[in-house]
């Protein structure tokens, strides 16, 4: 700041103090932002550091003589070093593979077999419990190019597994999609309709005020209570199957409803009353005004509200514990009635496992969930930006 001429006739002595005060306030506000950014950066850095290695996986080249004897006991034909390098999950599946390819019988096939979690950790330079001679063997294989990293497709295309290298996010992704479909098809229409009725049609009396207060209140209660409600009503009373995407979706719909109603009401309120009055002036019915003149400008606000409510529901675990969706579900659900698990539930389950490989998968799962949420929120912002009208 340039030097202020104190002899200037317009000079106010308190000005400098006031400026300093304003500056201080600005810095305090800024440091608050910096602290929260630092936390966020630390969290993201930690997740990326831990999660990125999970997107590649070690594979090892082996030759297998496909004989009936070897298929009978697929754990017997490897030597004792290789048996600790190759994944048990891969060997277990070999008979199924051979059954699908009957022409293999009697030949020797070459495979890039999935390696076990311990050897994978060794390749990635992490802690492992391999014996020294097995480590030497891996080093030899590395030199001859018979062991290598591949993109970890298993993570995206298989379900959960108790064999860490075989565990994937697929069933959780499918489960989340099914659950969200149920939630969306229930919560969005019901929520928007309720908001329209309360805002446009309902008389403003004690009863509707009472309802509104309750809806605002519901938007703030802890989500686990909705889980208990879901258990009592949907499972115990209606007999909806436990752990299914249907019951999870309905429970989350209950949870998202108040948020959708509140934000939709706000969107409807922001449409100026003059538009409605103009409609009445032209002799339109209330229904015509709402359909043709109030809903279109309110739509972006309603959609963003709904998307944010759904994004919140997608990251929710607490109510789902109660309705049994925190479960071991390796097979992806085929319909909304079969058992399913969701992404945050899968992350929660993995975080409790002792093996190192699961810690990696936990972080990778968080990254996937974060990117889905960022996409959803970005869509919400885009819709708002694109369709918002200002008066």
């Amino acid at each position: 700041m340039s030097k202020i001429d104190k002899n200037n006739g317009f000079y106010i002595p308190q000005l400098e103090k006031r400026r300093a005060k304003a500056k201080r306030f600005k810095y305090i506000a800024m440091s608050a932002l910096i602290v929260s950014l630092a936390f966020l950066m630390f969290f993201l850095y930690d997740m990326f550091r831990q999660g990125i290695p999970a997107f590649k996986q070690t594979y090892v080249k082996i030759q297998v003589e496909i004989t009936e004897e070897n298929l009978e006991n697929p754990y017997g034909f490897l030597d004792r070093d290789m048996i600790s390098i190759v994944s048990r999950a891969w060997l277990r599946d070999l008979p199924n593979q051979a059954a699908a390819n009957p022409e293999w019988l009697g030949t020797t096939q070459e495979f890039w077999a999935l390696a076990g979690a311990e050897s994978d950790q060794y390749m990635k330079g992490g802690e492992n419990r391999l014996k020294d001679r097995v480590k030497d063997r891996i080093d030899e294989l590395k030199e001859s190019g018979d062991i290598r990293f591949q993109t970890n497709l298993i993570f995206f295309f298989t379900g959960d597994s108790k064999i860490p290298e075989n565990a994937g996010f697929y069933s959780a992704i499918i489960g989340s999609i099914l659950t969200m479909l149920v939630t969306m098809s229930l919560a969005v229409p019901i929520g928007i309709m309720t908001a329209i009725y309360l805002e446009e049609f309902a008389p403003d009396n004690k009863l509707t005020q009472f309802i509104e207060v309750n809806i605002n209140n519901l938007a703030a209660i802890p989500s686990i209570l909705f889980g208990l409600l879901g258990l009592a009503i949907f499972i115990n009373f209606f007999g909806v199957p436990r752990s299914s995407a249907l019951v999870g979706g309905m429970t989350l719909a209950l949870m998202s409803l108040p948020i959708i109603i509140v934000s939709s009401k706000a969107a409807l309120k922001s449409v100026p009353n003059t538009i409605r009055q103009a409609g009445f002036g032209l002799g339109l019915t209330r229904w015509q005004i709402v359909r043709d003149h109030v809903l279109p400008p309110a739509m972006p606000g309603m959609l963003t509200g709904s998307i944010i409510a759904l994004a919140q529901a997608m990251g929710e675990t607490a109510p789902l514990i109660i309705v049994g969706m925190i479960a071991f579900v390796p097979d992806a659900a085929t319909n909304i009635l079969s058992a399913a698990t969701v992404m945050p539930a899968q992350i929660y389950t993995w975080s409790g496992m002792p093996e190192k490989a699961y810690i990696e998968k936990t972080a990778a799962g968080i990254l996937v969930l974060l990117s889905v949420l960022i996409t959803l929120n970005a869509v919400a912002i885009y819709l708002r930006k694109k369709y918002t009208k200002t008066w």
Partner: protein
Amino acid sequence: MKFWKKAVVSTIVAAAVVTAAQARDQIRIVGSSTVYPFASYVAEEFGVTTGNKTPVIESTGSGGGMKIFCSGNGLDTPDFTNASRPMKPSEFADCQKNGVKNITGMVVGYDGISIAQSNENKEMKLTKEQIFLALAEEVPSKDGKSLIKNPYKKWSDIDPSLPNREIRMIGAPTTSGTRDAFDEMVMEKASKSFPVYGGEYKKVRTDGAYIPGGENDNLIVQQLAQDKSAMGYFGYSFLEENHNKISGVSIDGVMPTADTIADGSYPVARSLFVYMKNDHIKDVKGMKEFANLFMSESMIGSKGVLKTIGLIPLPEKMRKKARESVKNLTPLTKEMVDKHTVLPVK
């Protein structure tokens, strides 16, 4: 009117679909979080190798599992429940009352509860009594005649031979089966050797020396690795997985290892159980095969795969007996429940 027609039809269809889900081809399991990893492993193996649908397993805790399991005999109730302790007589009575009369119990192995500390500490040897004095809310006074509020701040206050370290133990919360087992096998047992206590252990101290951790044993392990002065207790498999960070504390002179837990010399070990609802066998596909796979040598045997993820195998003779009992679907009787076993009582 079209809309209403559609709505009615779709409601009827939905209701029909819900009721049609009655006869099942997928096994449902609930129960203990300690047995959960083992049961899930078997479930996965069952799904991959037999072509059946992989059973769904929920980790609800032993008590929670029993409650759901015993809530009725219909097909909307689970087929198995896992437990890290035998079924209690009250739970057996509850089952009987709700029509769950034909149960077979499977004992699948042992689990040890280990006390551990960061590797950077010197080796520590504790007795049950010392642990009791460190953690109970009320302890006998020096002359042993009355009960006083726990005055011990450091291990060396209890016994001069112990290190001069603050007492801080991270343990399981009250909802956990691990906590139940620790209280029963360490605290209650040790309280019996102090006559003034009257043989009745009441409460863990609440002045901050005992820190209830979460259900997540991994977090306790991480805390121990960070916080060198603390100790913690959790399932043995977590010690086994993290030998590079933490080491076990011996209790009554015995270190927690797979061998000492299996031969019964380590004092803080418990049996793990799975209970099967026999009346479901005819309606749910693959239940018997699943039970037999669980009991097979390739799973719970001394070289079985569950050993690699931390299950401590039963002695061979007992395995054989347990396997026979499951094969014959030996029904659980009141006598067996009272004796805390699932094997036929002679």
